């Protein structure tokens, strides 16, 4: 008989957030709101790949300037080496009041991972210094 057991895939979501406070400065995202020290973000057991990354950000618009933002993914959990992803930009002519509201963006990927090893997440502001940004990143693992 030609019987094959088909295992349904599922996904696991791991997140970190943190702040960028200076231009051209690699800033690690190592907190998670009420968890000030959530510890290393480890690739979950059984994870086959990094299936997507979800990124959200906000900026205090405190400087009349323009800049772009990207993340870096590094660490032993990524056997293929570091990865980078541009996720947004921001500019204002005056810094005298305003609101911003931005939906997260999901970036579909297909990046090999090594289970039980750490992935470090960094965010960075390039171009001009746009003030302070808070960046949140969710890693979507396929298991």
């Amino acid at each position, binding site marked *: 008989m030609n019987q094959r057991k088909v295992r349904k895939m599922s996904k696991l979501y791991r997140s970190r957030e943190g702040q960028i406070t200076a231009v051209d400065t690699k800033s690690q995202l190592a907190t998670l709101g*009420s968890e000030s020290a959530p510890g290393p973000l480890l690739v979950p057991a059984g994870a086959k790949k990094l299936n997507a990354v979800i990124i959200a950000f906000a900026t205090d618009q405190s400087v009349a300037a323009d800049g772009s933002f990207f993340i870096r993914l590094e660490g032993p959990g990524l056997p293929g080496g570091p990865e980078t992803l541009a996720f947004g930009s921001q500019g204002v002519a005056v810094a005298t009041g305003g609101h911003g*509201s931005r939906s997260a963006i999901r970036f579909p990927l297909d990046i090999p991972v090594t289970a039980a090893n750490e992935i470090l997440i960094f965010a960075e502001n390039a171009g001009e210094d746009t003030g302070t940004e*808070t960046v949140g990143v969710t890693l979507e693992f396929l298991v």
Partner: protein
Amino acid sequence: MSQTITVEGDVNAVDTRTLLTGQGSVTAPSLVVPAGMTKIKQVILTAAADGLAAGEAVNFVRLGGNAVLGGEQVIVFGGEDSQTVQAGSDAAPSLGSLFILADADIDVRPSDTISIAGEYGGVDVGDMAFAVTLVYGK
């Protein structure tokens, strides 16, 4: 076949895990995963800030409780920022962000209870209204 549950609530402080347990006119909707449902197939997330404090923050949701088989799942879904407006000028509108995580594929155990918490990290931007819809499936 799919089934949905929507919860909402106010998150009033930064870095504060806040359970979302209301549903507008329904004070306490059931958070039991419907019988026969084994996955969260989609997560629909929205939040808006009143901008009464100057700051910038990212929003995320925590899906946990006994029903979530892979442990707590944390998903970022938006960012809100605000400069307090100078006296005499009009505030810019704060439009809420909406994020749909299609094909979420989160394993759950039917007939067990899920907890849904909203939170924002960064710098306090005032009050935020969160709403979350889970679409269950098999």
